[in-house]
C-alpha cells in the first residue's frame, strides 16, 4: 500500500518537473499552421481561420461557412482551412491575447473603424485592396474598413437600426406609426395610461441606448452628419445639435418611455420583453430580422404582428433616408501570415460566396449588393433592403467609429445620461474632452 502510493507520488513529481524543465520533447507536436509552410508558393498550405458563429447558436451561419470552406478546398487543391470557432466575447479576448504575441490566425473576423485601428497601426492586418472589388459592395461598407484609403477588411454584413413595434398592441389602442417625435411621445403617453410598457431597452450593454442618442443626433443634424463630424474632429462635440440630442434622450426617459430598470437590463432581456409582448416598441438593428420573419422558434402569431418604422423626425428636422447602422463583422488577413496569398484568396472567396447566400440561407443582410428581384424574400427583408438602396447616409455606430478608449467613455456616458446622472452639457463635455485628447 505504502509503496504503491509512494511510487505514484514519485511519478507525478517527475512528470511535473519534466514538464516544467523545458518541454523539449513537445517540439514536433501539431501546432497548427505556424510551422506548416513558410513558402507561400508551394502546393500545400494550411490557412488558419477563426470565426464567431458557433454551430449551437448560429446553425445556419456555421453550415454555410462550412460549405463555402469545402467548396474552396475542392477548388484549390492542397489548401486546407483549419477552423476555430468561439463565441463573441471569447473571440474578442482571444484575438487580443494572440495579437500581443503576433499570433493572429491567417484569416479572422474584425470589426470596423475604431476596433481595427490599433491592429492596422501595429501592422497586423494585410492591405486587401488587391482582392476587393468595391463596386460589389454597398456604398460606405468598405470605407468603414479602410484606414487612410487602404482597405484592411472585407465586410460581411450590414445592419441598419429601426424601431420595431407590435402591431397588435398598436391596433388595440388605436395607435399609428409616428412620423414625428411628438407623435411618438403621444403613443408613449397612451401606452403608459393603459399600463403597457412603451419601449423595451436593455441599456446594461449601453450600445442600445447609444442607438437612441445617435438617432436624435442624426435627425437634429438634418443633412449634416453631426456625430460623425464630431468624432472625426471637424466640429466640437459641444455642438448645439449634439447637446440637444442628449436633452431629447432625457425627455424621453422622464416621460417613462422605457421599461423600468433599463440600465440594469441586458439587451437580451429587453428583447424578450418585446418578443413576449410585454413592451410595444424596440429599437434594434436589422440583424434581428429573423426573429420577426423566418425564425420557426418564434410563434407565427407574434412574427405576423411585428412591423417597423424609421426613427421619427425631431423638431421637424431630419432626413428619413438617413440611418444609424453599419457593417458588423468583416474578414481580415494577417500581415504576418505564412500563407498570405492563400489566405487572401480564401477571404475574398468567402466574402463573395457569403454575399450570394447570406440573405436567402442565413437571413442576414450582407455588405455586398443584393438583387432583390431575383430572390424570393419575406416582405420585411425586401423593405429593409429597399431602405438600404434608398439610403443617403448611414451614420456608423458611435462605439464602432470611436477608438476603443473613447468608445468606453461614450458607453459609460450613455448609461449616465439615461440614468439622469449627468446633464446634457456634461455629457457633451465629457465626449469633447475624450475625443480632443488624441
Amino acid at each position, binding site marked *: 500500500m*505504502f509503496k504503491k*502510493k*509512494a511510487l505514484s*507520488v514519485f511519478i*507525478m*513529481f517527475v*512528470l*511535473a518537473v519534466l*514538464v*516544467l524543465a*523545458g*518541454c523539449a520533447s*513537445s*517540439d514536433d*507536436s*501539431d*501546432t*497548427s499552421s505556424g510551422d506548416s509552410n513558410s513558402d507561400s508558393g508551394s502546393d500545400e498550405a494550411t490557412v488558419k481561420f477563426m470565426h*464567431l*458563429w*458557433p*454551430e*449551437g*447558436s*448560429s446553425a445556419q*451561419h456555421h453550415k454555410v461557412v462550412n460549405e463555402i470552406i469545402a467548396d474552396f478546398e475542392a477548388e484549390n487543391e492542397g489548401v486546407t482551412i483549419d477552423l*476555430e470557432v*468561439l*463565441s*463573441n*466575447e*471569447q473571440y474578442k*479576448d*482571444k484575438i487580443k*491575447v*494572440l495579437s*500581443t*504575441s503576433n*499570433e493572429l490566425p491567417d484569416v479572422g473576423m474584425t470589426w470596423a473603424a475604431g476596433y481595427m485601428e490599433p491592429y492596422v497601426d501595429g501592422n497586423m492586418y494585410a492591405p486587401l485592396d488587391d482582392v476587393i472589388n468595391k463596386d460589389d459592395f454597398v456604398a460606405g461598407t468598405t470605407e468603414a474598413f479602410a484606414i487612410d484609403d487602404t482597405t484592411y477588411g472585407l465586410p460581411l454584413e450590414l445592419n441598419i437600426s429601426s424601431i420595431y413595434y407590435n402591431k397588435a398592441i398598436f391596433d388595440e389602442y388605436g395607435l399609428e406609426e409616428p412620423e414625428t417625435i411628438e407623435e411618438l411621445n403621444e403613443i408613449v403617453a397612451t401606452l403608459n395610461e393603459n399600463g403597457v410598457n412603451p419601449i423595451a431597452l436593455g441599456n446594461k450593454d449601453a450600445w442600445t441606448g447609444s442607438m437612441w442618442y445617435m438617432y436624435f443626433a442624426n435627425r437634429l443634424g438634418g443633412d449634416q452628419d453631426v456625430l460623425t463630424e464630431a468624432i472625426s474632429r471637424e466640429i466640437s462635440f459641444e455642438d448645439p445639435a449634439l447637446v440637444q440630442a442628449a436633452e431629447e434622450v432625457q425627455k424621453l426617459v422622464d416621460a417613462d418611455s422605457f421599461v423600468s430598470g433599463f440600465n440594469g437590463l441586458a439587451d*437580451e*432581456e429587453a*428583447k*424578450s*420583453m418585446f*418578443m*413576449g409582448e*410585454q413592451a410595444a416598441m424596440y429599437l434594434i438593428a436589422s*440583424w*434581428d430580422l429573423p*426573429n420577426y420573419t423566418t425564425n420557426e*422558434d*418564434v410563434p407565427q402569431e407574434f412574427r405576423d404582428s411585428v412591423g417597423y418604422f424609421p426613427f421619427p423626425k425631431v423638431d421637424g428636422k431630419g432626413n428619413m433616408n438617413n440611418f444609424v447602422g453599419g457593417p*458588423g*463583422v468583416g474578414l481580415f488577413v494577417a500581415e504576418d501570415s505564412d500563407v498570405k496569398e492563400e489566405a487572401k484568396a480564401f477571404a475574398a472567396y468567402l466574402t463573395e460566396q457569403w454575399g450570394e447566400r447570406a440573405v436567402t440561407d442565413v437571413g442576414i443582410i450582407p455588405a455586398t449588393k443584393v438583387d432583390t428581384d431575383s430572390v424570393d424574400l419575406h416582405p420585411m427583408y425586401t423593405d429593409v433592403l429597399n431602405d438600404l438602396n434608398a439610403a443617403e447616409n448611414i451614420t456608423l455606430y458611435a462605439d464602432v467609429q470611436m477608438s476603443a478608449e473613447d468608445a468606453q467613455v461614450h458607453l459609460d456616458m450613455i448609461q449616465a445620461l439615461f440614468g439622469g446622472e449627468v446633464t446634457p452639457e456634461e455629457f457633451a463635455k465629457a465626449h469633447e474632452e475624450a475625443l480632443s485628447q488624441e
Partner: protein
Amino acid sequence: MRRIGYILLYVALAIVAVFQIFPIIWLFMFSLKTNQEIFAGNPFALPTDPKWENYAKVFEGGIGTYFWNSIWITVVATVITILIASMATFAITRMKWKFSGLVLGIIMVGLMIPIHSALIPLYNMFLNVNLIDNPLSIVITYTTYNLPITVMILLGFYTTIPREIEEAAIIDGSSIHRLFFRIILPISAPIMSTTVIINMIYNWNEFVFVNTFISSDKFKTLTVGIQNFIGQYMTDWGAIGATLVISVLPIILAFLFFSDKIMEGITASAVKG
C-alpha cells in the same frame, strides 16, 4: 423551552435548505425552457412545454470529447495540486528551517494575482515552449493557480497536528517520507477531501485559460460546450441550461463521494489517535 429552541432551529435550517436546493431545481427548469420563457416568463414557473430537445442539441453538438477532457484534466490537476501542496505545507509547518516564512509568503502572493494580469504573459511563455494548444499547458496552469489556496487551507490543519505523533514515529526509526506518506497524509484525509472538492470545482468550471491556450476542438473542455450556444446576436439559453445541467451532474456525484470522505477520514484518524 429547549424543545422550542430546537424546533425553531430546524425551521430555520429547513428554510435555508430550501433556498440552497432551489438553484439546482431552477437550473433544471431553465434547461427545459425557451429563451422567451427564460427571460420574460416567471422564473418560478414550470416550463409550459418542456423542451427536451435542448438536451438533444447539446448531444448533437458532440460533447463527448469535451466531457472526457474535462474529467481527465480535472482529475490530474487536482491530484498533482494536492500532492505538491501537501508536501510544501508539511515542510513549511512541521519542519524547522529559516526560510519557511519566506516560502509561505511567496506562495501567498500567488493568491493575489488577478487572472487577467497573468493571461498575456502566460500565453507568451507557453508559446515559447511550444505548449500552446497542448493540454499540458492547462494542467500545469490549473495546478499552479490552485496551489496557493490549497496550501492555505491545509495550513490551518497542519499546524494543529500534535507533535507527539511525529516524535513517536521518528523515534520508532521511521523515515521522514514514511512519516509524511504513512501518517500525516492519512490523518489529513478530511482536509484533503475538502481541498479535493474545492480544486475539482475550480478546474471543472474554468474557461478563461482553456479558451486562450487551446484552439483544437479535441483538447477543449466542457465549458466550451457553453460557448457553442452563444451567438453573435442571439444566444440559446435553454441549450446552455441543458449543458450546465449535464456538466454539474458529475461534479455533484464527486462532491457527495468526497463529502462522505470527510467523515470517514475523521473516523479513521480517531481510531488511530
